[in-house]
């Protein structure tokens, strides 16, 4: 009567692809998208664009680390 709930649907496949590529770190995927997208925009403006992708990627990486600091345990191990 009813179909099994575990059949493979396009939605499940898209969710699996999303989990695989983006996972728990959407910032990295957004950074990659921004780096390549902005490079294309700079190219379309007729300007040299080779510097755009590294600048955007590295700036995004640094921004994603802005709140990070060594944990208390590690800091105390280092100081002892």
């Amino acid at each position, binding site marked *: 009567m009813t179909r099994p709930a575990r059949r493979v649907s396009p939605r499940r496949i898209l969710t699996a692809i999303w989990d695989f590529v983006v996972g728990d770190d959407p910032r990295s995927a957004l950074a990659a998208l921004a780096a390549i997208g902005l490079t294309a925009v700079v190219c379309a403006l007729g300007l040299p*664009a080779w510097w755009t992708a*590294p600048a955007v990627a590295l700036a995004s990486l640094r921004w994603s*680390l802005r709140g990070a*600091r060594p*944990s208390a345990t590690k800091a105390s191990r280092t100081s002892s």
Partner: protein
Amino acid sequence: MSGAEASLALSVFLACAVEAVEAFTIVLAVGTTRHWPAALAGTGVAALALAALVAALGPALTVLPLGVLRVVVGGLLLTFGLQWLRKAILRAAGAKDKHDEEAIFATERAAAAAAPAAGGFDGYAFAISCKAVLLEGLEVAFIVLTFGANQHDVGLAAAAAAAAVLAVVGAGLALRAPLARVPENGMKFTVGVLLTSFGIFWGAEGAGASWPGGEASLAPLVAVVLAASLAMVAEVRGRAATATVTGSRGAAP
């Protein structure tokens, strides 16, 4: 072998070695605790599935127009590279726990011992080994595919991956213990730098940019990404010192 091909082989070898160490730990724990034939069967089925994926998608990717291929490949490599690099920077700076193979081995052994045993073929050992190899290997399979397709040398990438698996399994069988002394974070840091650099290079080319000096600019790009990453490690580490100085000043009467 050109510089780009050597970098391709090195990136795939290191990425595959790191993931193989992690998968080996789980298979070893399940095999020694439960049932070796079932654990090895699970490993074999997963390895065949990954090989089939590479064999099926490799030729399909190479027929894409070069610009489209480079945007897709560059985007994927840059995404994976930034994810690996961010975690490696956090680990190197002491802001994230390092991968502890011995602790993972002990946890997996305890879980395997606690799971109910069934007569005959051990489905638990099969499923856990198969899942571990599939999950750890999937990203490597995509790295093999994307690097190989872009360089039109999926064979070289697959050979580098196979060499890494053989090296890890050989070392593991010789030691008969989890490979806890492999410098996993250093390897992940290197892979992150290489994937990010190749992702930037191919992604920018696919978006229409021309690199000064063409492929010769790849080496300086790797150097820039490495230097920036090391600077970020130092910056995150420095925050502890700053916090300590501020904290001790604040605590003074």
